[in-house]
């Protein structure tokens, strides 16, 4: 306990100004817990991409809060050397929203799975999108429920056999990119664990973007999804950058979102700059800055004014 001093006083967190930022290598964002994913799980690639992205952006581990739900993919914060919350299945976005509004100085990254974010968490996801909160949502979309050993997820393709659809899936998959775009997302992208450098680059753009950013990552589950394998994706993916896609074009973005499954675009589908974020419009934050840095307690005058208002 030598280094662990106790204090009666709260030392409010302060974001390190860019000028004082210390450079961190991607490996500086490795925690001392060894990832327990199955060998070759796509989530390794996502973790590596994220570590590279935050390193490239020159972020400090202490200024990042990574919030996940529950699932194989949601174990990520444990392996990522930043502050983290490994919250409840489907609730990462809501927890992250509270944390971001309490301390908008944090770089908030939400990570999780397709079941977590597009299944049980679908409502929170889309409501966060329309708020344009300045957070980045990274979904490890393996089109399956991994941790619960292989049931259909909301992105499982039609006819796929899983533990819960032994006769083949009879529900259409959701299109998360299109959902985000039509709900007013200001940054919507897709990456693939099989393209690690591209993934890191897209993630860096997403984190840098001011406003809600979604990076849907194809992150193959090698154990339970025998359809959407690395090979399957490799045969289909291409990069939007190579196709002169205009990410400012709302309609073009939607069109691209509906290209799959024959051809699967990777990269930034849609991006809108300059939209005000939720935090930028909240009265309390604008007047007083981050809640977490305010002094608590009221003055006698304030208390009297409140009480008098009832008289």
């Amino acid at each position, binding site marked *: 306990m030598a280094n662990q001093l106790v204090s009666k006083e*709260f030392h409010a967190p*302060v974001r390190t100004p860019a000028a004082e930022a210390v450079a961190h290598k991607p490996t500086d964002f490795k925690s001392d817990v060894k990832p327990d994913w199955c060998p070759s799980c796509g989530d390794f690639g996502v973790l590596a991409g994220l570590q590279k992205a935050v390193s490239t952006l020159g972020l400090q581990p202490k200024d990042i809060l990574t919030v996940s739900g529950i699932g194989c993919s949601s174990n990520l914060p444990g392996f990522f050397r930043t502050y983290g919350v490994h*919250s409840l299945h489907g609730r990462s976005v809501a927890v992250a929203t509270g944390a971001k509004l*309490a301390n908008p100085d944090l770089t908030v990254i939400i990570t999780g799975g397709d079941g977590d974010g597009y299944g049980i968490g679908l409502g929170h996801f889309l409501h966060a999108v329309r708020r344009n909160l300045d957070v980045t949502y990274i979904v490890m979309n393996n089109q399956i429920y991994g941790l619960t050993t292989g049931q259909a997820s909301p992105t499982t393709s039609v006819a796929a056999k899983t533990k819960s659809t032994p006769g083949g899936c009879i529900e259409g998959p959701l299109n998360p990119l299109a959902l985000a775009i039509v709900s007013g997302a200001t940054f919507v992208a897709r990456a693939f664990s099989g393209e690690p450098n591209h993934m890191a680059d897209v993630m860096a753009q997403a984190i840098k973007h001011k406003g809600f950013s979604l990076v849907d990552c194809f992150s193959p589950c090698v154990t339970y999804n025998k359809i959407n394998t690395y090979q399957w994706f490799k045969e289909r993916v291409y990069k939007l950058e190579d196709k002169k896609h205009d990410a400012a074009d709302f309609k073009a973005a939607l069109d691209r979102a509906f290209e799959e499954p024959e051809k699967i675009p990777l990269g930034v589908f849609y991006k809108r700059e300059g939209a005000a974020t939720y935090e930028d419009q909240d009265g*309390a934050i604008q*007047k007083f800055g981050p809640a977490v840095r305010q002094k608590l*307690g*009221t003055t006698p005058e304030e208390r009297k004014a409140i009480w008098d208002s009832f008289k």
Partner: protein
Amino acid sequence: MAKKNTLGLWIGGAAGDGNASAGESFMQICARSGLHSYAYNSYQSLIRGGHVLFQLAISEKKAWVHPDAPDILIALNQDTIERVAKDAISAILFNSDKIKVDESKLKKGCKAFGLPIMQLAPNPLMQNTVAVGALIQLVGADLGLYEEMLRERFGKKTKEVQDANVAAAKAGYDYAAKNFGDIGIQLPKGKGKKAVLTGNQAFGAGAVVAGCKFYSAYPMTPASGIMHWLAPRAAKYGMVFKQAEDELAAMNMAVGAGHAGARSMTGTSGGGFALMTEAIGMAGMIEAPVVVVTVQRGGPSTGLPTKTEQGDLFQVIGASQGDFPKAIIAPSTVEDAYKTVGEAFNLAEKYQLPVMIVSDLTLSEHLETVDDFELDMPIERGVWATPRKNGEAGEPFLRYMNTDTGVSPRAVPGQEGLLYVAGTDEHDEKGDLISDVHTDPAKRRMMMEKRQRKMTFLAKELKPTKVEGPADADLTIVCWGSTYTLVRHLMETVNAAGGKKINILNIRYVYPFATEDVTAALKKAKKVLAIELNFTGQMCRLIRMETGIEIKDKLLSYDGEPIPVEKALAKVQEALNG
């Protein structure tokens, strides 16, 4: 004969008729002239129509209940006449342009005072103002204060609108003076001005003063009042107010904000609370401070959204799976509501756990005058880890360090050198999951014991649960929540009468339970009667679980209404004499 110096007033009409606001204005006037009052508004789950009845008691000494029957009834529609004219004691005020009163159906001595609104005001919508003017005359209240109030209320409107309203009030006053006889009521003048507020407003104001910086909620009767009071005021006090997409989000946001270091709160009612329970368990596990106000209403399910009940006790006790540290407090009065928020935040932060405040519709929505009291509250945030320059750290930071008290020094995201992951899976002192380690029963036990140990220390710092009233009373009445004010009224009434005496054991701490205090009080009691608003006697069941003592004599009410004083008095007499 000396005039009566208290007033029971009912104002009846349909939703949209504005009777509550007329009643509140009158209540406010009386409060400004130093009188006490207590009001309960009975309404329904619909926006227009139906029957709304605002029930107000005014007196010089503290009023604890609304009146069973009114001295004066103001009827804003015919329906009110049909329903409750028979209950009025002294007088009925009504718009004689549109309402008929059959005097033969009234109580003996009750007078029907018609107000020809068309003659007295330019607009029939001003009928309330005219009626309040007449009322002021009848009970000898201060018309000047009403004028002041009307000018405040219509402050944003033109001078013409203000003048017209003031004139209407005056017209009512004058008409009464000229046409209505004396009804033997004269309200006294009290001292100073008194605050008038609801329990929900007290929760809101308490949150501001307690340093709450984040309130997330989803609208739900009867908790919305907290939101409605805070929404327009939050920014002024640096509080982020966030309407969430549902209660799942409201609660999870509050946990996120609490985890990040802001004092955070959410509020809801039973159906919404059901949706919050999973994240309450999360707060227990990741040791995030958070305060949840749940306001009970008539159940089960959607039930009676605008009616009162105390039927959610076990829902709150049983919130979320597994054993985890938490506190549950049930305040009883408006002042208590205010203070409970401060207490809740201190417990939440010092012990790093969720604190639930259990209110009920009556407490949350009734209006009450409150004498001035010390508004300041101590803010105790517990122990913090000291930030450290990253390089310095010779060993990992143990966010969940196993300490003597179970409380581990806290850290929040953004602080230097205290990186950790807060996980809902079982974890070790550092925060690393142990759910994927083979089997580490020893570590698991240590972490469970560490968390639960906090309860021992928390329990020690709670205020004692004491019997109120004469120690040697013949009957101890057990109650909780808003029912306390009824029992308080009963005690004052019965004990003033001189005969047998009663005292009160009000249960405020639901969890941890004040087992020793309650056991001692119940053992000492000559007779015990419990009064609560639910079918199964939930508080009695809890008491039996915690003390082994069975309370056999109960007044249980589950019809959605506060218990009438008469009915409660009869039961008390029976208990005293039985």
